[in-house]
């Protein structure tokens, strides 16, 4: 008997079903295991193939996913990855993303359960992003790339099936979001004038890594007219500060995504740190743009030291400190950038892809069982 067959003898680990595709999908819907779209049946053979790229014990949890605090074992994660349409070689990156988003600073419990519409955004850096063809260029957040679509979907299925983020039960989001189907991209390192995000966040350049952010959907910043970096940054700053944002009340770390053309224009005169300082100083919202009740009940409470008796021209900041702002270069040609607000009560987590013995992985083949 195979190692997997032995694990599947545990109570509740497997279920025998009619093998017909439609019958399996009807069962998935009946059990509430899906995201509403048809799934690839998580048969024993397909899960076995997925686990060929896992060097951890298959039945030991790598994380507990809130709000249910379900144990994310490689076995369960592999079933979700199969259902989402992942190739087996995607599994190490998928498992890394799950581990990262379950680290305490991200506050996944809040991200999952809130009435806000946030979802974990995963940005992939390093050689594995290129090895797996994770799209960083044109339409990076859109359809058409299997790695982006299926790994992102597998994450959502794990958040649903293991974490219990069931709409209106464990996920109380007022609106939900398209980002709750799939939200994974790579940074366009080849087109970036600056060091990659994972290097800025302390990892070696040769590392592969994910950065996870409890994020809203991206909001476009159209600037076809500015002829220099200051102009582009002014337009981005003007897009960042809005009255309904969570970030203006928290020590949050929102994300500015620069398209490569904007990034080059900015980098001609600004380092990344200088660009962050400019944006922090200029992305402001006059208190007078808020409602009277919000001023009384939130501004005066949250900023009691600085704004105990605010005037309409006093300002709130989209990001409280320049060093808290994240900048990544993503996308293809076109004079666009984007702003990604966050849930507020969440901090980004960056984690490197390592094998079970702690080495930085050079390739997903490092995880393959021999």
């Amino acid at each position, binding site marked *: 008997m195979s190692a997997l067959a032995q694990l*599947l003898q545990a109570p509740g680990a497997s279920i025998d079903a009619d093998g017909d595709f439609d019958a399996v999908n009807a069962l998935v819907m009946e059990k509430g295991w899906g995201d509403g779209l048809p799934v690839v049946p998580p048969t024993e053979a397909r899960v076995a193939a997925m686990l060929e790229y896992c060097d951890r014990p298959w039945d030991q949890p790598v994380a507990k996913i809130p709000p249910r605090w379900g144990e994310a074992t490689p076995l369960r994660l592999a079933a979700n990855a199969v259902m989402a349409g992942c190739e087996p070689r995607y599994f190490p990156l998928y498992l890394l993303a799950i581990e990262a988003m379950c680290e305490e600073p991200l506050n996944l419990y809040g991200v999952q359960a809130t009435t806000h519409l946030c979802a974990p955004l995963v940005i992939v850096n390093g050689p594995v992003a290129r090895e797996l063809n994770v799209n960083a260029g044109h339409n990076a957040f859109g359809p058409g790339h299997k790695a982006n679509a299926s790994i992102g979907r597998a994450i959502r299925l794990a958040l649903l099936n293991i974490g219990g983020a069931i709409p209106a039960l464990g996920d109380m989001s007022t609106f939900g979001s398209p980002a709750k189907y799939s939200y994974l991209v790579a940074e366009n390192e080849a087109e970036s004038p600056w060091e990659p995000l994972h290097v800025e966040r302390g990892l070696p350049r040769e590392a592969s890594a994910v950065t996870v952010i409890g994020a809203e959907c991206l909001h476009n910043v159209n600037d076809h007219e500015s002829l220099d970096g200051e102009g582009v940054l002014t337009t981005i700053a003007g897009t960042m500060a809005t009255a309904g944002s969570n970030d203006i009340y928290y020590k949050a770390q929102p994300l500015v995504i620069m398209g490569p053309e904007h990034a080059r224009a900015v980098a001609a005169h600004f380092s990344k740190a200088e660009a962050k300082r400019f944006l922090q100083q200029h992305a402001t919202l006059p208190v007078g743009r808020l409602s009277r009740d919000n001023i009384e009940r939130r501004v005066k409470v949250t900023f009691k030291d600085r704004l105990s008796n605010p005037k309409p021209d006093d300002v709130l900041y989209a990001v409280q400190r320049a060093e808290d702002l994240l900048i990544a270069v993503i996308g293809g040609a076109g004079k666009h950038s984007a702003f990604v607000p966050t849930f507020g009560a969440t901090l980004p987590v960056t984690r490197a892809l390592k094998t079970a013995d702690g080495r930085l992985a050079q390739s997903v083949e490092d995880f393959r069982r021999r």
Partner: protein
Amino acid sequence: MSSKVRLVVPEAPSPQTVAATETRAVAIGAGIRLGILDNSKGNADHLLKFIVEGVKAVLPVASVVSLRKDSVSLPAPADILDRLVAESDYVITAMAD
């Protein structure tokens, strides 16, 4: 006719299901000890005040311990939970959205 397959279950059971089956006998005679956890949402304090008044109108209440967590979006810290466990028979918290 299609054949049978073995599917790997993608779902994790809820560990809280086990905890929820535990019971603790509470003697109401001298009044219940009521715990209040204000999650600091807007209006949570008002909502909880009304609920406490409503409970007092229908049940004997020996004591009320009312605690507030600092962040709406983060779980209550251990010291608050420990105190509620130690000093309360029942705990009411607020959603308030």
